[in-house]
């Protein structure tokens, strides 16, 4: 199987996943983006579902499958649970939960053809998403035990922003990118729900 480099792939090349700049696209190709916590995405990758002879998936029923993948056999055949599907926000994609060998992965999935149409439309408008404000939200519900920055502070990527305690443990939240702290939305001692706004970076 050819290994091609993917677009902005922080986890290394994906075997069998086609670079999303390749043209022309395969009929049936799908654009997949992995949604991580803190609003960070991995991908997108353009994937041809028919193009992965090494990833052998036996679907058992509508919610279960097994992967018999040669390059992962040191963990045995890997059970897959297909979880929830719901519309993803602000695009035509659908958000899907896939649990692979116990790992819970959230992915936005849409046909590559429609994704490209949207890309062109957006290029027309000019994409400002990467320079706009970034909302940092709680990735677990808990109690804020420390706020390590002040409004107006310049922060670097990876710098600690605040600490949330949940389930007897303290969780540091670090900045996903460099920027300026525009607003801090919580205070020490405050209880926050999942996805509650904590602060805004610009």
């Amino acid at each position: 199987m050819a290994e091609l480099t993917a677009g902005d792939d922080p986890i290394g090349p994906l075997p069998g996943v086609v670079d999303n700049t390749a043209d022309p696209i395969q009929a049936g190709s799908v654009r997949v983006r992995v949604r991580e916590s803190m609003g960070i995405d991995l991908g997108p990758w353009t994937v041809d579902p028919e193009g992965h002879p090494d990833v052998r998936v036996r679907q058992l029923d509508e919610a279960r499958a097994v992967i018999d993948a040669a390059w992962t056999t040191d963990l045995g055949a890997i059970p897959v649970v297909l979880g929830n599907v719901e519309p993803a926000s602000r695009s035509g994609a659908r958000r899907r939960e896939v649990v692979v060998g116990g790992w819970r992965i959230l992915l936005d999935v849409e046909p590559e053809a429609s994704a490209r149409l949207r890309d062109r439309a957006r290029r027309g408008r000019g994409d400002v998403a990467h320079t706009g404000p970034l909302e940092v939200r709680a990735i677990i519900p808990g109690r804020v035990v420390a706020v390590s920055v002040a409004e107006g502070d310049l922060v670097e990527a990876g710098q600690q922003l605040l600490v949330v305690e949940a389930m007897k443990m303290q969780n540091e939240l670090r900045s996903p990118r460099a920027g300026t702290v525009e607003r801090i939305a919580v205070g020490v001692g405050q209880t926050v729900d999942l996805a509650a706004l904590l602060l805004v970076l610009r």
Partner: protein
Amino acid sequence: AADLAVRIGPAPAGESYLRIDRVVDAARTAGADAVHPGYGFLAERADFARAVEDAGITFVGPRWQAIAALGDKLAARRGAVQAGVPVVPGTFEPALVERPDQVEAVLDAARVIGFPLMVKAAAGGGGRGMRRVNTPEELPAALVAGSREAAATFGDGSVYLEREVRPARHVEVQLLGDNEGHLVALGERDCSIQRRHQKLVEESPAPGLTRDQRVKLHEMAVRAAAAAGLTNAATAEFLLDPAGSFWFLEVNARLQVEHGVTELVTGLDLVREQFLIAAGAPLSEAVVAAAALAADPSRHAIEIRLSAEDPANVFAPAPGRIGRWWMPAGPGIRVDTALEAGERIPPDYDPLIAKLMVDAADRATAIARLRRALDEVEITGIQTTLPFDRALVRNPRFLAGDVSTDWVAEEWDGQAERARAIELAVVVAAMAATASPGAPNRAPVGPGVPGTTGSAEPAGTPKPARTGWARAARQDAVDRWPS
């Protein structure tokens, strides 16, 4: 307990489960004859046990005097030494943290113990107040920081020094004693696989021990606990160093989370025995018989603590709402849980969501069974420790019984494991997005038999049976084939 629920306060434990007055009030109001404290919250608090007894209610656990004596780790260390049990080298009195004139004395003691060493809290465990000290220069700051954390956590800032035994295995002995002075060991558990000084996996017996080691270990555990007048259930914890020597750590004067593996090996119901003892009965015949066989275990049991944590992110808690929930069952499988599909895991408590236990005649069979059982677990909606557990039961060092408290640090690379899963998830999600209902993606049929699902494994590769998946695969083949 199941027939009456009494509100003791709001969700934060400090305002409810840790409020002695409210729990005792609830027991009194309900007309309880006895209180079993479980294994968390107030279970090991002498003042709680005393308050229960003062209310005229039987406390199902050790006497409060013994809990107090064993809860003071320094007193327990002194007692063990007097009973002739080797303790981890270190100090036996609280370090005089607030006295600048005593710094040199502490440093002298530290040099005798040797570096690196540990600063530990006298009043409690669970890693709180604990600091690792690599050089004499680091010691004063570590003492102050450890003491402050201990004071904040336990209300007692006393700390002491202990040699760092490393690499080490964590081996503990289950104890049961009646009120007539009989105290027995019911075998040991290896709990070396830990993160944040908290256990992830426990098994009994501890792999690789000789019969002589077992006999000696059990006997030391009984001596150390008897010195404190222990009754009812408790666990004596030891470190096992690479030379094969055991070093006493402490006695937990309560039932442990992992008591089930001992139940599976001995056939006992430890909670039931606790109640019988609390009601004044002598050790039952079954307990005495199990104790006689403790050095010659004929079964092997393993427990996985399935927790709502992210094993790619330092096992950080991952609360949320459960979507799908399916647990394995069948021969040799025990699952202790209170959860089901749709339930919320609150952020207020420990992230443990289920205890998955297996037992079999030997360790290899138990691990094979566990491997199969883990592949039957289906949970969506939250991240769990399942990927870690799946890797563990396939790890050559674990299979060889080569475990230590450094195992997780040395063997587990959660981010790499997760990255591999992401690669597969991307492909699977793409396939699922294009597959039309009724036409699932299926591997080419194997041996060319119509209606047969194929396996990509080479023939001759033995794989454990997976009942849930097997059923689904069967249904897939049978139901979809035109008859």
